[in-house]
Every structure is written in structure tokens, then in C-alpha cells.
């Protein structure tokens, strides 16, 4: 071993301080806490929709929010796992979950073209579409901030994958946090405007996140 490396090793060893280990549980707690905050802010701004527990919500409301939550959990777990370097990772739960969620806008589009959309809140002329998209993205921003902070502390070695996952996890969890305050439960509203923020957040994550987490 050459002297330069020996000196460097001696220096690093000399400066060594105990460290608090970064754990998967810690990452999940941070992302989970951010989701709770996003949910709390959504409820404070838009009020909780108690109607969902009084039989007012359609089954599509539960299906959509359930799938979006599942995508958020799968992406958040993969994101947190990706912060700890290892080789041979193969899990693709976020990919399959995203594929399942992608069925929702297809269902919405089919509903629109088959004349099912006859409500003012349905379809592409949905007057609250922009509000739902914005609110979901605002909630997603909180989750994304926590995710990026955690990844900066950890050591992601697949930067692009982690960036996609930040977008997917924050988009899905943010949309879920806002989504359960939204009383509009039609196929076309939920299938389009409660899925679009997930896709938008994923693309934003892919573009914005890499420079923030590269090390």
C-alpha cells in the first residue's frame, strides 16, 4: 500500500466518530410522518370528508385511493431501501403498482367515450380538476422534501431510479393524503385528476431530484 493511501486511512481513522446508523425504519418513519403532515394540512384546508364513512363514497373512490396508497407505499419502501447500497436488487413492486394505477385513467377515458360521463364534474371539462391536481402536488411536495432529505443522508447508488421513486412515492402519497378529503368520487374525476398528479410528480422527480441526491 502506498504512503498516500496509508496517510489518508490514518487520517480518517483518527477523525472517526461514532455514527447513528441509518435504518430502513427511520426512512419509512420520515416519509410516513411527511405524509401525515400532508394529510393534516389537506384536512385543515379542505375539511375531512366524513361522507366516506356514511356510505356516500362510491366503490371507485375506495379502489382509486387504495391503489394510489399501495403505489405510494411500494415506492416509498423501494426508495428507502435504495438508500442503502447493495448489489443484486431486483424488486419491482413500484413498477407493478404503477401499472395497476395506470388502469384507472384508462377506465376513466373509456367511461367518457361510452357516454357514462354525464356529471358536471366529469371529463376533461371538470371545473375542479386543476384544484385537485394542484392540491395533490402541493401535498406531494411535502413528501418529496422528506424523501430527498432522507436520500441525502443515505447513499443511493441508482440515482435515476431513486429520482423516479421520489416522484412516484411523493406523488402517490401526496395524492392519497389530499384525495381522501375530496368528495368527488366519479370514475372520470378520480381516474383522471387523482392519477395525473402522480404522473406529473414522477416526471418532475426524475428531472429535479438527481442533482439533489448525487454524492
Amino acid at each position: 500500500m502506498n504512503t498516500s493511501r496509508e496517510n489518508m486511512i490514518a487520517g480518517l481513522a483518527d477523525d472517526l466518530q461514532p455514527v447513528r446508523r441509518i435504518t430502513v425504519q427511520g426512512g419509512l418513519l420520515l416519509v410516513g410522518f411527511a405524509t401525515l403532515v400532508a394529510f393534516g394540512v389537506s384536512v385543515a384546508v379542505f375539511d375531512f370528508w366524513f361522507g366516506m364513512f356514511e356510505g356516500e363514497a362510491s366503490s371507485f373512490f375506495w379502489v382509486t385511493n387504495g391503489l394510489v396508497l399501495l403505489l405510494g407505499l411500494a415506492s416509498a419502501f423501494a426508495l428507502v431501501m435504495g438508500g442503502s447500497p447493495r448489489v443484486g436488487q431486483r424488486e419491482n413492486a413500484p413498477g407493478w403498482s404503477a401499472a395497476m394505477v395506470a388502469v384507472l385513467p384508462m377506465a376513466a377515458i373509456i367511461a367518457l367515450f361510452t357516454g357514462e360521463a354525464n356529471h358536471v364534474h366529469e371529463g376533461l371539462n371538470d371545473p375542479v380538476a386543476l384544484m385537485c391536481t394542484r392540491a395533490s402536488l402541493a401535498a406531494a411536495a411535502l413528501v418529496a422534501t422528506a424523501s430527498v432529505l432522507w436520500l441525502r443522508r443515505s447513499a443511493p447508488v441508482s440515482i435515476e431510479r431513486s429520482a423516479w421513486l421520489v416522484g412516484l412515492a411523493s406523488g402517490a402519497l401526496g395524492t392519497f393524503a389530499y384525495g381522501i378529503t375530496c368528495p368527488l368520487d366519479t370514475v372520470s374525476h378520480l381516474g383522471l385528476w387523482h392519477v395525473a398528479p402522480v404522473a406529473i410528480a414522477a416526471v418532475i422527480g426524475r428531472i429535479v431530484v438527481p442533482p439533489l441526491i448525487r454524492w
Partner: protein
Amino acid sequence: MIADEATLARLMASAQDGDKAAYNVLLSEAGMWLERYFRRRVPPSQLDDLVQDVLLAIHNKRATYDPTRPFMPWMAAIARYRWVDHLRKVYKHESKEIEDDDAVQDSEEEVTLARVSLERLFSHLNESQAEAIELVKIEGLSIREASQRTGQSESLVKVNIHRGLKKLAALVEKAD
């Protein structure tokens, strides 16, 4: 002789708790392992810089090691990540002959090396991409020289390097 997986894992766990002597041994052993790991994948003139770069990364990210998991795959993932980053940064270098001697390895390490080998990453690239990266990023040829050597146009050499490195970056933790 490079320490085995269990010893390295134990040393790292002790280092996380602040054991300086254990850390010194760990980094020395890791340095030797990395030297062999990178030997055929970077010009000899860059080998020590890359090893030191990875050791520094190990130091900075030591909190991310989970003592309940094997140490070698953790270190190898960091090594791959820094290596791809190194290939991206290094563009033009004087041509250096890559050492071709295969060091004798003990059987346990052979298994680990086989699992995390950089060669395996290259096997995921197509022939043109691997050739372009080998010649320009590792042997240090210019784009023009690589173009003449391979028969690919200069633009194609650049495209193959760009796409190959992108693919390598995506494979850092995915490939066995």
C-alpha cells in the same frame, strides 16, 4: 490476505461505534480489495485515486451500512457507483496498458468477486458500447483513435459511450 466477509462486517460494525483501530484495519483491507477489484478496469495511473475516492465514500456513508447485512455487497455497490462516476469524469488520458495479471484469490473472495464483478456489468452492454468505453474511458484513447480502431464513426463512439455509461449507472445495484 484480505479478511473474510464476517471479519469485515464485524470491523465495520465496530467502526460505526467509533472503534478507531478496527476502522484502520477495515480501510486497509478494503483498500487492498478495491485495488484488485478495479485493477483491470482503470488505467494503473488512476487506480490509487479511485481506491482513495471509494474509501472516502465509505467513510462519508458509513452510517448507511446495516450490520445485519453482508458488508461486501454494500462496499461493492459503492465501488461500482464511484467507478461509473469516475468513468464519466475521466475523458482523455494518455494511453496506459491495463495490467493483465490475475491475482490469486482465496475461494471465498472468488465467490464474492464473481458476484459483484465489474466484468459482469460490462456483459450487459452491447459489443459496440463496451468497446467504445473500454478504449476511450479505460485505455485512454481519444474519440478519433477509438473511431479508427473500431471502425465506428466518431459520433457513434460518443453515442455508444453515453448510452453505455447510462446503462452501467442503471445497473449499479441491479446486476448481480
